[in-house]
């Protein structure tokens, strides 16, 4: 028997829970088919979410899942340009014609879907992003020059969370696009995802006791993002997310972290998200999304 999981038509952080719900209990017993034929658009968060599902199935020693690629040529080209298919081919049996990557000219993909397995990969990511980040953040989004380096710092810290806490590898992708419905402005989005132990299990041995019965995925996210705690006893740990939060405040940016069955967001004035969503469909590891919007032209 095969469990068919449909990728939402518009696949981003908002529709992610529909995708996660398709898997039921983790890991699903049946063979999985991820059906992206009807997908018209996917954010970097969505793309690396698919890879995370594939990785989690591989780590659970399940049969290699199938992935049917989008029917739309435009969508396929976009996914190829983002480096999705080259990563997906290792985790899924791909069905459908896949375009060659890099054959379609320049794009707003600032960083292809990139695996993060060790700290050397973080060096590679930061090195690769530096030029494009300045062009987009300063040139297009109107952020001050020093924002580029803060942005790289945020990217570095977000990727290091995988290396330090997940207990497995993950992915990162960075892209610029226009948030038409939510904001009506250009944004840069960093998406980071892993199929690891998640925040609750990472922090459980050192922090669960303090929370008592409240302990769960939501409390673990609060502890990490709001209180800056870490599983390490080293007092220098846990500063990365606090720093990201601080400068996102200055830029009216947004960070949201989904882990297990909860999602916690620091919600800027332009967004109507719920700060803490609990009892969501379970999904492996942790998924982080950082959104940096173009500055309001009036304030430039």
């Amino acid at each position, binding site marked *: 028997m095969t469990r068919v999981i449909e990728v939402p038509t518009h696949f981003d952080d908002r529709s992610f829970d529909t995708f996660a719900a398709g898997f039921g209990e983790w890991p699903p017993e049946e063979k999985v088919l991820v059906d992206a034929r009807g997908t018209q658009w996917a954010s970097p968060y969505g793309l690396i979410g698919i890879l995370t599902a594939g990785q989690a199935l591989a780590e659970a020693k399940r049969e290699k899942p199938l992935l049917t690629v989008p029917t739309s040529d435009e969508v396929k080209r976009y996914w190829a340009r983002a480096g999705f298919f080259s990563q997906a081919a290792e985790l899924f049996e791909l069905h459908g014609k896949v375009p060659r990557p890099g054959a379609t000219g320049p794009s707003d993909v600032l960083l292809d879907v990139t695996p993060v397995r060790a*700290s*050397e990969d*973080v*060096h590679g990511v*930061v*090195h690769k992003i*530096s030029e494009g980040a300045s062009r987009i953040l300063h040139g297009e989004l109107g952020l001050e020059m*020093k924002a580029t*380096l*803060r942005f*790289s*710092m945020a990217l*570095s*810290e977000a990727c*290091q969370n995988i*290396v*330090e806490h997940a207990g497995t590898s993950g992915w990162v992708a960075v892209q610029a696009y226009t948030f038409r419905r939510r904001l009506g402005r250009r944004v840069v989005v960093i998406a980071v995802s892993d199929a690891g132990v998640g925040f609750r299990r990472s922090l459980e041995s050192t922090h669960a006791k303090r929370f008592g019965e409240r302990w769960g995925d939501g409390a673990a996210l609060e502890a990490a993002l709001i209180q800056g705690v870490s599983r390490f006893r080293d*007092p*220098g740990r846990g*500063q*990365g997310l606090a*720093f990201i939060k601080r400068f996102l405040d200055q830029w009216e940016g947004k960070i949201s972290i989904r882990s297990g069955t909860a999602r916690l967001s620091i919600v800027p004035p332009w967004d109507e998200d719920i700060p803490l969503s609990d009892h969501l469909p379970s999904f492996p590891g942790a998924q982080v999304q950082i959104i940096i919007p173009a500055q309001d032209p009036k304030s430039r």
Partner: protein
Amino acid sequence: MGRVLQEAVAAPYRNLVTRPTGAAVRIRIEAALAVSNCLTALLDFSEIELVDLSCADEVVAKLLLTPQTAYFLVLQGLREDHHEAIEHVLTHHRLAIAAVPPGCMVPRLLGWVQDDAREAFTHISETGPLDVSGLARALGWTASRSREALGDLTLHRLVRPMGELYYPLQTA
């Protein structure tokens, strides 16, 4: 720092990022200091593009946290964003370090010290060595206030006490 970084990661990167990289760089600095007779170590960041918080913590904060070090640390060649990362981690640990701004000989303080200690540091860095009473006179403080501020700076290894005098750190 650029050379130490490239030796530590065995790659031509100019970004001081990740904890393992920071730890490798710190170990190299400690090894160099262990065989040196110099009292003051000047860490030059001018060839460094980016410093993230993890590396700032592993390199700068942990060097300062090393117990019973015989040397004084001064940073130079820092850009504004380097300042920001280092200041953030030092404030978190309640530590401070002297940093020489580009094109300037007088260091400024990065991180956390009491206000009086900060004022005393600036004064001694600008005017040269002073004793407790000299600082008290110059800043219009009582002797005990002056002694406390200088004690703070000594504890943070931000001045060099020699006899009755407190010397500014060497920056060149």
